[in-house]
């Protein structure tokens, strides 16, 4: 006769290590990974602070994404200590984890002891459906999705780069998208600026972009700035944003943005395109080099053509804009290796993606100093500024 469920559980509990809530409470800051194996509805009513969530129904397929190191100390818990015992057995006997414990009495006993409970902000049913493919990724999950919904990203331009970036960040659920653009939609834009369409020719780009974004994802709030970014408005616009996406088409503003973003310590995901080639880097103030570390001075006007004059393959800003969107999401989630201190070089005709290293310049006129010491007067100024601007006009 097969053993009863209660008998199997008794046997399992005799083979695994169990730990009391008081001991878990003492070990919260000791490097142990605490995992809640309950269902999402239970998790949403409150969990142990700092715990990760891997529901038992998906346990075998997801636990390795949450705990990759087989020697990591892991403490599992559920509501009463039964499901976590089964899960601990799975981790030890089937998956080969070496140091796994199950918390006795589960969340019920934890609460009875009066320990702290963290109640997660929860996604609506519609959001769970909309972002379901994100929620399936351990690197995003509901916690990461909440970070995206809370994030504020500023797009400098709703043009070639800003169009794909804006569309995909909106689809991903980035909660606030600021858009700075003083231009109106032109027929010649539509070869690459896919956030606009043929019915919107003549419409301000910020309005056209807002209409597309809102139709795609009503979770996204659009902040419109129908102005040209400059010294008079940059310190009014940038503060409060978590990440700036730069697709600026001129050098004076590029330096101004750099200096303001260093002063405000806001990371900038920057891309540039020309013809069939693109460049991309993430400038995260004080973590890596800034734009001035890479290019202390701009080239003379004859070596600094804009795309309008030189042509660009329509899909290229799509490629580069989506690389930017990817970096933005990584920065918000705190996942992966952002392109900090690296300049990626994409060659569409050759189908190659190369990179060069950028180092932080210890003598950088801007990022070698305290952010507070960067004054309004010196922001955006570079050697030969007057001559550059004279040549550019």
């Amino acid at each position, binding site marked *: 006769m097969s053993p009863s469920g209660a008998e199997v559980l008794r046997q399992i509990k005799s083979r695994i290590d169990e730990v009391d809530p008081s001991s878990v409470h003492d070990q919260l800051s000791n490097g142990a990974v605490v995992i809640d194996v309950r269902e999402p509805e239970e998790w949403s009513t409150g969990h142990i602070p700092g715990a990760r969530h891997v529901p038992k129904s998906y346990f075998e397929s997801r636990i390795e994404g949450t705990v990759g190191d087989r020697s990591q100390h892991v403490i599992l818990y559920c509501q009463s200590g039964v499901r976590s015992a089964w899960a601990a057995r799975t981790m030890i006997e089937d998956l080969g984890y070496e140091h796994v414990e199950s918390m006795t009495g589960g969340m019920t006993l934890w609460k009875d002891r009066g320990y702290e409970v963290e109640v997660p902000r929860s996604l609506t049913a519609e959001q769970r459906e909309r972002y379901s493919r994100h929620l399936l990724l351990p690197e995003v999950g509901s916690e990461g999705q909440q970070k995206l919904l809370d994030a504020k990203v500023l797009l*400098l*331009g709703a*043009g*070639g*780069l*800003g169009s794909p970036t804006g569309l995909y960040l909106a689809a991903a659920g980035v909660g606030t998208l600021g858009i700075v653009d003083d*231009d109106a939609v032109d027929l010649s*834009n539509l070869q*690459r600026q896919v956030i606009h369409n043929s019915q919107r020719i003549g419409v301000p780009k910020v309005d056209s972009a807002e209409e597309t974004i809102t139709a795609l994802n009503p979770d996204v709030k659009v902040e419109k700035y129908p102005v040209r970014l400059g010294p008079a408005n940059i310190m009014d616009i940038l503060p409060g944003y978590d990440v700036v996406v730069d*697709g*600026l*088409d*001129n*050098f004076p503003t*590029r330096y101004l943005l750099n200096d303001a973003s260093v002063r405000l310590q806001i990371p900038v995901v920057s*891309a*540039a*395109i*020309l*013809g*069939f*080639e693109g*460049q991309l880097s993430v400038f995260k103030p004080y973590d890596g080099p800034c734009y001035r570390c*890479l*290019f*202390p*001075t*701009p*080239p*003379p006007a004859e*070596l*600094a*053509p*804009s*795309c*309008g004059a*030189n042509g*660009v393959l329509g899909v290229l*800003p799509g490629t580069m804009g989506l690389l930017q969107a990817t970096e933005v999401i990584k920065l918000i989630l705190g996942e992966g290796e952002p392109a900090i201190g690296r*300049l990626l*070089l994409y060659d569409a005709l*050759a189908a190659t993606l*190369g*990179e*060069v*290293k*950028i*180092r932080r310049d210890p003598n950088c006129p801007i990022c070698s100093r305290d952010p507070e010491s960067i004054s309004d007067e010196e922001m955006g100024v570079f050697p030969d500024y007057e001559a550059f601007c004279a040549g550019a006009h």
Partner: protein
Amino acid sequence: MATIRIPPVLRPAVGGEKELTAGGSSVGEVLRALADAHPETQSQLFAADGGLNRYVNVYLNDGDVRVLDGLDTAVGESDTLVILPAMAGGAR
């Protein structure tokens, strides 16, 4: 012969080529050989004092030569030099 990657803005000065080879045992020698073969690149690469223009970055493979030994950085036969002026451009 080292390989030199030519950026889009310099291609008109080298007959449209994206990649060239030039002889020399240092970065300075290779770039001067390039400038000798294609004189229009001279003023774009080099400042009046013979040093590199500050708005042009040159990488030996993936490292900035300014962090290495500048124009004196040794170059091997199989090395690639990447010339990289700043690009701006979102395409409005």
